[in-house]
């Protein structure tokens, strides 16, 4: 049984192909994945007291609501919840800003599964380990 087994991960991405692929990769590692393509639905998931997530992975540029908004909401409601940003529109400035706002890690698409799993594993490690 690996470190990701039974971890609950919320994945938010408006790109269906990417969402499905991340879902499969993480599910393959034993995570319980909730995949949503609508950021507003992601806020509802986070606000649901019945659900408890260990990690949020969110795209940055999405219609209706940005990933930064999802991260802001998650940080306000659940300060201990790590958030990983994954985007196709990354620049050094956006990366720096995201990390400053509290993202655990900033990934630029495309990422391979090994890289994704490695960052997710680090994010789910006990908090004694420093952030990236």
């Amino acid at each position, binding site marked *: 049984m690996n470190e990701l087994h039974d971890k609950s991960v919320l994945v938010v991405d408006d*790109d269906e*192909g*990417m969402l*499905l*692929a*991340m879902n*499969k*990769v993480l599910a*393959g590692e034993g995570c319980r994945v909730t995949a949503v393509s609508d950021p507003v639905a992601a806020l509802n998931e986070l606000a649901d007291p019945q659900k408890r997530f260990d990690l949020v992975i969110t795209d940055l540029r999405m219609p209706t609501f940005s990933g930064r908004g999802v991260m802001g909401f998650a940080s306000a409601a659940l300060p201990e919840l790590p958030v990983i940003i*994954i985007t*196709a*529109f990354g*620049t*050094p*400035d956006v990366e720096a800003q995201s990390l400053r706002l509290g993202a655990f890690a900033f990934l*630029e*698409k*495309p*990422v*391979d*599964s*090994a890289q*994704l799993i490695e960052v997710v594993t680090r994010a789910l490690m006990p908090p004694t380990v420093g952030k990236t």
Partner: protein
Amino acid sequence: MSGIDLLVKTVVARFARSRTAATVGAVGLAVVIGVLDYLTGREWAVSAFYLLPTCLAGWVAGRAAGLAVGFVCAVVWFFSDRFGGSTYPNPLISTWNAIMLLVFFVVVVWSLTAFHDSHVNLEQTVERRTAALQAEIEERKRLEHAKLQAERLAVVGSMAAQVAHEIRNPLGAIFLNLDLVGKELGVLVNSDTRSPDECQALLREIRSQVWRIRQVLQEYLRFARMPKPERAVLSLKELLEEKLNFVRPMLDQKRVELKMALDPDLPPVHVDSGQLWEAVLNLIRNALDAMPDGGSLAVTTRRNSADALVCVTDTGRGMSEEEVRNLFVPFFTTKSDGTGLGLAYTQQIISEHGGRIDCDTARGKGSTFTIHLPLAVPA
């Protein structure tokens, strides 16, 4: 045009070419007029002809020559008048007339040369202004061309950035799906007791091609969206020593000998260390591509007045004139897998730092790229 006209024009043109020839010719002409004056006697007045050599010398050879010829004319007139049968009641009248003639010549030469000088000045001013105007027109044309080029590049850059970003999403999905397919294949083929090697090799090939696309996209984006340099005052020797030691294993692998000559007394520079190293690394990569069978790579630093110089020299194949001309032109490449942005990006970095980069190359001998960076505290 008559024969006489042609002769006069030819003679004038010849005299006009040389000040000495004009002066000597004018003196000769004065003597000829003097002889004519003497032979014609008092009945035929030819004194006005003396103006001809005086004016010729003054116009072509200048004021001093004009005055000298004027003096000669007055003397010649004096002698031809004196010995040509003049019967003045007072013998001093000839001398007085010669002096009057000389004064007249002086006034004419003075006025003529003043007019000539102002004419020449005007011509020179017009020439100077025309040249300045032409230079300004050329400069404006060059700036307009550069502006147009920059605008085109900005459009291309922003389009490239947009396209690159848009491609990243599907590329991300392909990447992850490839890994999933690889995993599934491994399970399937193992259960069938067939070797998964071929399928895995194909997947590896697809993955490597996707990696290549990713690299190209990253280079395009890096070029289109270069961040502003975050500068600090640092020693080039320390920076390059540290970074070059990291790339040494890669150079060994490619059978390239690294020679470092980093001036320990070189004053510090004010640079973004990350960007500067990227620029130097691009030059090193370029040098390695030029030496596929190995060779020698020299990285040196030295001071040149208010600049610090970083030279990267290889013993590779060198470059053609066309390659040198297009060296820093974005998207120009001679490599089958190149994007043509490496050196353009390098130049962009160095320009952002207020420096410049130039290249010396010799076919079959190698190339030297020199980065000029302003020192942190100018001399």
